[in-house]
């Protein structure tokens, strides 16, 4: 118990979550996360041996679509909210692969 989130961990989480924290915000985030983890550690008190993790609460299965084209060209609508657009495409910073 009593989790401590160090700089390396918060930086790592920043890479995963694509968040850049600095100064005070970063110190606060370390404290908040440690506090939450202490709290979540409470789950450890429960014996869950043999209990299947439940991701879906109801036993719904096999939900499908048929392989039929239902969508037409909606490019203008798809691009309408793009911060930057060129030649009918979204603009991203230069990537060096793909």
């Amino acid at each position, binding site marked *: 118990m009593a989790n401590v989130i160090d700089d390396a961990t918060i930086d790592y989480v920043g890479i995963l979550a694509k968040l850049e924290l600095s100064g005070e915000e970063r110190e606060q985030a370390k404290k908040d996360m440690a506090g939450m983890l202490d709290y979540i550690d409470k789950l450890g008190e429960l014996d869950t041996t043999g209990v299947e993790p439940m991701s879906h609460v109801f036993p719904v299965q096999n939900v499908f679509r048929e392989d039929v084209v239902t969508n037409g060209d909606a*490019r203008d609508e798809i691009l309408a909210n793009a911060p930057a657009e060129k030649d009918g495409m979204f603009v991203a910073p230069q990537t060096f692969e793909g």
Partner: protein
Amino acid sequence: MAKQYETVIGLEVHVELATRTKIFCGCSTAFGGAPNTHTCPVCTGMPGSLPVLNKQVAEYAIGVGLATNCTITRYCKFDRKNYFYPDNPQNYQISQLYLPICRDGYVEIGLPAGATERKKRIGIHEIHMEEDAGKLIHDDWEGCSLVDYNRSGVPLIEIVSEPDMRSADEVIAYLEKLRMLIQYLGASDCKLQEGSMRADVNLSVREAGAKEFGTRTEMKNLNSFRAIARAIEGERERQIDLIESGKAVVQETRRWDDTQETSYAMRSKEDAQDYRYFPDPDLPPLCIDDAWLERIRERQPEFREEKRSRYRETFDLPDYDIDLITDSKHMADLFEATVALGAHPKKVSNWLMVETLRILKEKGLDPEDIAFSPEHFAALIDLTERKVINSTVAKKVFEALFDEDIDPVAYVEEKGLRTVNDEGALRGIVEQVLAENPQSVEDYKNGKEKAIGFLVGQTMKAMKGKADPAAVNKLLKELL
């Protein structure tokens, strides 16, 4: 003496499935649309959009699993693989990690002559379903990348092999085997160049006889058999050089550059390789029961081995012909359809093996690219057999058939290509040829049998190729 090294190779093969629509939305998978014209809120990751699974994707995946001797996971789920990249609109890819749809299968590959065993079994660790990413187009002028999501959400299966291969030849034999099975299923056209089949190579080396695997690297961007073979050779050498110079092989992803014939590491501080997989809450699990599995099993096509023995029994063809025809499902289908229209099996086979393969090779095409219809093909064979056209003309007509799927009967009439069988007309021409070539007539009479060939040629030329050479030959002998 230099140490002997063994190469250990496993493959991750991505295959684009031949569905009409994407895996989770009703957008078309057709190639060639203008950028972002085959997109919707789902495949562009718009807020509030939700995925719904295309049933055909699961059926193709199960079909491939059955064809590769896998155990079908009766209760399988989709997971999210989280990573940021602009071609991935949600910044997570819907894939399967924990419960992939197929597991523990194998295919058998033939080994080259001289090997101790004729066949080798390559294990398949798993097959899972996932969605393809969009396309990034580099705009060097503006110094940016442009994103087209037409391919985003196209269904893929990823076939993960065991590390059972030891050479580039085995890798290629394995890929060819997979390609054939999948093409027979109709689940994909499996074109490496067009990216509908893509292979990532996991490779490590170890001293011959060692039990432990070495550290492996993963190589991406291999889009031809040739590139795969060269990349394997290059990476093997690179790893051996590292080991011999006392350095360690680093586990990493490398990108093969086929023009430079070298690979380089794809490393970034921002790329943590920690994908935080978890079950996708938007997609309920799949429960594959016996009845469904049985329906798919019943629909499985006849695979190559079964086809081979049937061809042997039904069509009485030599093994050589059978191997060539059944090498491609598309070719085999064309063969069967043409024979069903009444053409003689061996004649059909000859046209496929000689003229068809020649043109494919000249044009750099695959058998899957054959576009002419069995009806027109059968009609051409019929015209030839009935000697309506001679073999030289037939080859010309076949080229037109191959290029444009012309109707041979109409084509022959239109171009006036019929063989002239009118004895009177032919006799007149032959008499004229004999009169114009006294030297050849002389030679023939002096026992130079070959001279008749020249005279036949001259007659054919005068007839603009439309005579039956046998008839010409016969008439010449008669008049001489």
